[in-house]
């Protein structure tokens, strides 16, 4: 009984970390830059396709593909940011929604055109597919790896944004653009880099997620809802908030499915509604 409870906790936490990895980039672009980027999962999908292509066609090892997935998504986002998104930083939320959802449709059709509609095979090395047994409990290696990756990313991101000069510039540019410009901060440049960072993280998250959730052109839509839930429950602009929110949602989803499967998919929404009624700005929301 206790064993199964611990198992549920572990699985839920790992699932939460999967959601966190997918959504942390969005808490940078939507949360910090205040840009409603519904195309977030398109960048994640790009990362996924990069990883699959390199592994399947070029025979790269899984780990070597991860930085490339990050860079590819970041590079693609810089092009889009400079060409399109930049123009809408001060537009209304609705305009931003319309533009980015349009990009999602384009990316879905683009992926279907290039890769076809079929599901992409994701084959990891065997040592990532086994499990370690500890105290009678099985811990799948890949889930352990996801948890580790999420923790590392959280620490690095928080440290970079809170304690480095670049982080200070980003926060200044986001909080008060005119003042930041007046102080000689290259706001355009900072925004471009920040956006690339958020999208790069999306690419990395996508590359890490496909082993568990699969990859086809519908990916950009399927996981959009989950990442938005995580970011809004966590509170905009808060990396730590996204982390906590993803953990809560992951564990409650898993526990709900294990103990009351009849509730099934609804629980995740109930948790979201409950948390947002309690704290409308999200758990760690500042505005």
């Amino acid at each position, binding site marked *: 009984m206790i064993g*199964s409870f611990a*198992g*549920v906790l572990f*699985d*839920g936490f790992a*699932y939460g970390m*999967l959601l966190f990895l997918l959504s942390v980039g969005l808490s940078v672009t939507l949360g910090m830059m205040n840009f409603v980027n519904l195309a977030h999962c398109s960048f994640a999908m790009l990362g996924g396709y990069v990883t699959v292509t390199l592994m399947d066609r070029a025979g790269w090892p899984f780990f070597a593909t991860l930085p490339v997935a990050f860079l590819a998504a970041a590079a693609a986002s810089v092009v889009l940011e400079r060409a399109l998104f930049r123009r809408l930083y001060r537009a209304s939320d609705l305009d931003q929604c319309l533009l980015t959802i349009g990009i999602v449709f384009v990316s*879905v*059709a683009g992926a*279907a055109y290039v890769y*076809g*509609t*079929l*599901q*992409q*095979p*994701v*084959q990891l090395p*065997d040592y990532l*597919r086994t*499990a370690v047994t500890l105290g009678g409990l*099985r811990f*799948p290696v*890949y*889930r352990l790896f996801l948890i580790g990756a999420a923790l590392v990313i959280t620490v690095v991101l928080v440290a970079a944004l809170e304690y480095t000069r670049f982080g200070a510039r980003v926060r200044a540019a986001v909080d008060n653009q005119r003042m930041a410009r007046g102080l000689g901060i290259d706001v355009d440049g900072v925004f471009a880099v920040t956006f690339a960072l958020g999208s790069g993280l999306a690419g990395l998250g996508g590359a890490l997620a496909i*082993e*568990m*959730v*699969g*990859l*086809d*052109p*519908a990916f950009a839509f*399927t*996981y959009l809802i*989950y990442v938005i839930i995580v970011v809004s429950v966590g509170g905009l602009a808060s990396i730590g908030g996204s982390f906590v929110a993803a953990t809560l949602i992951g564990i409650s*989803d*898993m*526990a709900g*499915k*294990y103990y009351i*499967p*009849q509730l*099934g*998919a609804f629980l995740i929404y109930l948790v979201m509604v409950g948390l947002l009624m309690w704290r409308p700005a999200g758990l760690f929301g500042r505005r």
Partner: protein
Amino acid sequence: MRSRLLGVVSLVGALLVAAPAPAQPTVKIGLIMTYSGQFADAATQMDNGLKLYVKQHSDTVAGKKLEFIRRDTGGIAPDVAKRLAQELVVRDRVDILSGWMATPNTLAGADVSAEARKFMPVMNGAGTLIPTKSPYIARVSFTLPQSAGALGTWAVTKGGFKKAYTMVSDFSPGHEAEQEFQRAFKEAGGEIIGSVRFPVANPDFSAFVQRAKDVNPEAIFIFVPGGVQPAALGKAFHERGVDPKKTKILGSGEVTTEQALKSMGDAGIGIITAWHYDYNINSPLNHAFVKAYREAYGRNPDFFSVGGYDGMHLIYEALKKTGGKTDAEALIAAARDMAWESPRGPMSVDPETRDVVQTIYIRRVEKVAGELVNVVIDKVENVRDPVKARMKK
């Protein structure tokens, strides 16, 4: 300059030559499928299947040229499917409403077929009751109870399993598969020791798999719609340490499609499924079909492809019988007792229910020459849809 002029002249000349001869009589076929969205790949495969048939048999039947009009529902959207069907009938004046995938879309289209009196060959939609909704429907795909029932009986009588657990997606095809498997399994003397239904779009299955594992069944019957989920579920069994030697995984063919097996890797070995088609079926007809398909589209056909292929066969043969007449009464009369040899094996349309009758293959996933394939270990011939067979009694 001169050469440019020459180019223009020859272009005009080519256009003149290509101008249509006096209109040949046509048969218009409307195809309603999920060309985009979550089930886009199913539509791609089905469209390839029917295109291949047209390519192999010319696009003129009984003196009439076939004209295809394709419409996309974008996913499971019965309202859209119904509107598209209405538009095809009223505006484009189609003679035949075909294609069809996803049960809700197909049921919505059936209304239009019944009202507008249009012949409606169903190439996929698996819901049991579909053919009862319009007298002009003939189905060439499959029903889930067909395979789930055959598998339920087989699991007890030949597989030797006594205790089973069922896990299905919580929507009507899942319910149909679950009920039929449980009924057949119990009738054959087995016992169902638990069941669970999970959401239709479920990214992580580990909690459900843990539940099943807790009660230690000899066999677990699973049903999930195709796409990314079968691989995720297969991996979850492996991760949770469900030992394929102690607990057998049973399922419908969607679970072990070529793509799903590629993603599952060795976690897929040992899964037993019941299905009506696989590209590995060993017959000369299927070998030729797979070869032509691979040449044309660069991949293996699947059950959607063979549905499109057989659907076209039904349309061609029915049109030949009616001499090109397209009224629904004549076409359905021609189609309703048709039997033929398909790449999937012998199949026919049941004259009473207008539903498909075919062989169900029991297959086990094995590694052959380094590749995971469904190896046929047994087959059940002439399987009718068990639900409608019971309704008659």
